[in-house]
């Protein structure tokens, strides 16, 4: 056993061989000057100046770009739907702003990574300067993300309060949102394996439909009036289902034991497709439905026709478009509930939102 190494031994000895098979031997390595004898590296302050300028522009860009776009009322869709409901449109604006921010921030970081990779690829055997920290830079890139996140959180809270706001059950009193005091249509949506039931409690209309397996068959359809507040009560008979419409930028779980209530204010007429999104068993992929928004007058006509046809709350009949065509579905081996729609439980008294 030799004499123990002290730091002095290590410091004063130069290794003359390489322990690497792949990298050149340190014989050509240039020793870094001892900073205790040399001046402050001038490139360091230049780095700080460059980063400082870049930093300010970067921050301005990150915070400013989405706000500027929003101010100009231009929201890139990035593949999403602008939203056919008031709530959905607000969600879309938030989404668009966040995507713009994300693209700017992510893009900057990606450019930084790629630039670094190209700029600092090994050109010589010169040993790089062995720096390991820069307090100011680290502080900046800790504080700036907190600010960005704070701004995003603020807009999130504002949008979320709008999306989840519900009018009081008696809609004559003022409420939040531009549709305060608008007439209210109460609909109870019941999800079950594997279909949907829509009960218009004030109108004695019931629509039900289940799994479909034909082309262009979109399952039961909920007809609604434009310009009125839809107060949806969402329940489930068995497993958890997801009530989702792409065009409304919205989804909510239907869960046994939980009564979810939310408002939808449809802005335009049209047919909007929906589907179950929470996996619920064998025919989850076929649990389709749609919402057709019509003028209030057409809605009244439709409601009367439904009552006349016997599609009422207590009836178990289903609309014409809801009869599934004959298909090749075999009896599922391990699915629990049967395929025929069960009479849904009477909707429970609605708790206040």
């Amino acid at each position: 056993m030799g004499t123990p190494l002290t730091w002095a031994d290590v410091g004063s000895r130069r290794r003359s061989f390489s322990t690497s098979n792949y990298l050149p031997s340190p014989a050509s390595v240039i020793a870094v000057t001892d900073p205790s004898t040399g001046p402050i590296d001038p490139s360091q302050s230049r780095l700080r100046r460059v980063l400082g300028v870049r930093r300010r522009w970067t921050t301005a860009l990150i915070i400013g770009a989405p706000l500027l776009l929003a101010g100009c009322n231009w929201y890139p869709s990035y593949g999403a739907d602008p939203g056919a409901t008031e709530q959905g449109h607000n969600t879309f604006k938030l989404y668009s702003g966040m995507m713009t921010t994300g693209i700017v921030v992510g893009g900057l970081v990606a450019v930084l990574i790629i630039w670094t990779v190209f700029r600092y690829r090994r050109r010589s055997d010169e040993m790089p300067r062995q720096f390991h920290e820069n307090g100011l830079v680290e502080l900046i890139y800790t504080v700036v993300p907190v600010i960005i996140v704070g701004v995003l959180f603020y807009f999130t809270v504002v949008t979320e309060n709008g999306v989840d706001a519900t009018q009081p059950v008696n809609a004559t009193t003022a409420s939040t949102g531009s549709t305060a005091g608008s007439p209210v249509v109460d609909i109870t949506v019941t999800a079950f394996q594997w279909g949907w039931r829509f009960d218009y409690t004030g109108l004695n209309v019931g629509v039900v439909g289940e799994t479909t397996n034909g082309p262009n068959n979109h399952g039961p359809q909920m007809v609604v009036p434009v310009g009125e507040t839809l107060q949806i009560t969402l329940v489930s008979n068995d497993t958890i289902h997801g009530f989702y419409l792409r065009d409304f930028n919205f989804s909510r779980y239907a869960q046994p034991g939980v009564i979810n209530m939310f408002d939808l204010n449809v802005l335009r007429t049209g047919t909007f497709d929906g589907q179950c999104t929470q996996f619920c068993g064998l025919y989850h992929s076929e649990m389709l439905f749609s919402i057709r928004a019509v003028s209030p007058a057409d809605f009244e006509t439709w409601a009367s026709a439904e009552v006349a046809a016997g599609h009422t709350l207590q009836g178990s009949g289903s609309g014409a478009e809801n009869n599934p065509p004959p298909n090749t579905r075999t009896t599922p081996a391990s699915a629990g509930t049967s395929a025929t729609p069960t009479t849904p439980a009477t909707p429970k008294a609605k708790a206040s939102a």
Partner: protein
Amino acid sequence: MTTTVERPEVITPEELGGPDGHGPDVQHGDAHHGHEGPSGILNWLTSTDHKVIGKSYMITSLVTFFIAGLMAMVIRSQLLDPHTSLVSYQTYNELFTMHGSLMMYLFAGPFAFGGLANYIIPLQVGAPDMAFPRLNALSYWLYLGGVITMLSGFLVAGGAASFGWVSYAPLSEATNSPGAGADLWLMALALTGFSAIFTGVNLVATIFYLRAPGMTMFRLPVFSWNMLVTAILILIAFPVLFAAVVMLFCDRHFGTHIFTVQGGGSPVLWQHLFWFFGHPEVYILALPYFGMVTDILPVFSRKPVFGYKGMVFATMSIAGLSTGVWAHHMFTTGVVLLPFFSLLSYLIAVPTGIKFFNWIGTMWRGQLSFQTPMLFSIGFLLIFLVGGVTGVLLASPPVDFMTHDTYFVVAHFHNVLIGTAVMAGFAGFYFWYPKMFGRMLREGLGKLHFWFLFIGFWVAFMPQYLLGLHGMPRRVASYAPDTGWTTLNVISTLGAYIVGFSFFFFLINLWVSWRKPVPAGSNPWDGHGLEWFTTSPPPHHNYTHLPPIRSERPTWDYNHPEHRSIVHKPKDKASAPSGGGTKEPAGAAS
């Protein structure tokens, strides 16, 4: 046979070998214990050596990875066409359940903490083995038992579990999912859960108690720090999973009503329990891989890691915050406190951003060379960046309402998981393979593996973001032709095939390196950590000699004393000048 292990001798320069850097000849100096012991399969069954156990974990988890990958190929093939009937709905549901379960429970975690960390952490801290070697072995056998149990679901009547890797109640109750497959799935979780818990205990004990002299906590490599934090997260999260699994099993078979409404239970309770485990779980999967990249980037940049303390505190912040955000998976239930979980989810972006900038800072002004581990690390940086940004979007409840349970989320989590477990995981594997097996993997094949995987990833998953925004839900066995989703699905499937194909290069690389080995030497990458000081593979009980440990890069300091970064002046001022490339002005002590 239990052996007592003494500290290795100090190394003197004269004993250090020649240009191949092998270090002293370890075979002859090893007088403490002979090398008798069982060989062959009995050795595998009885070994408590962390190196053998680590390799077993890696092989088993990679096999699991490939099985789950094949399932993914079938899933993507089914989605090529609307209303395809490649497999039945039941089989499809089993496939995506098992794909997710195998990947999450049986590959990504065990590969990281059971495989690579098990092998590398004792080496990095200078220990002869893990603190509890027999417990370590037990962890592996419990894990293997879990793999067998979960896969045997395919052999029973009724098939494997088919309720998704999250097994939400009431879908997972006995009325909706009868059959032994679901019960086997639950039992597999119990086994692998305990395997993980025991590994977590071992990691904490090893890092706290078995470090080499001079290896203070703040001289640990960042990979060791990340494994320590991961281990504590495992101890927080996995017992909750076990409790939830037991409760669900009781609901299924012993007549309890914990998660069913009739009888007074609550399905939402399952979600709270599961996600209190589930969200830390994804960080348990991510943090080890962050640590691997943090160890690899400095080596191939020829510089120390930038912002060491920032990295450590960022890791701890991520872990802490991750335990508080579980209900962001439950935003659409309508019964969780949205602002609390939204704010904490947003905040996780801050320490993650710190880590990103530190990784960039590590490469900044370095001399970058692009061997395979470095390529995979850079791939990780780019892929995880996109995944992280989309995660920030999902932290917002309104945006979550429009994307929850659609392919947007599928794209997001594959983005982050492939970035970490696959990209960074293979970076770690390629990096430490020479140490573990004493031979090099071929660079050409490694680069081919990387490029096919990298390009295939983007082709496979970027269309899925759009699919989610266009309204395609997840976990659907088929979709209608008039949705317009077909084209994007075809592109995504093509990308999946490219990803799958990339692994042929990896397998060929393994085979070639085995048949025609190129000896690696103890330090082929000019690595920084202590593990590169010993031979490849390390001898029994890892070290016969140790260098002085004065920074987080003991091997680098030993090999490049004039380029060390952190200088610690010994108590007697009569020695060493301060050296290295610190930026302090003249005369300042470091």
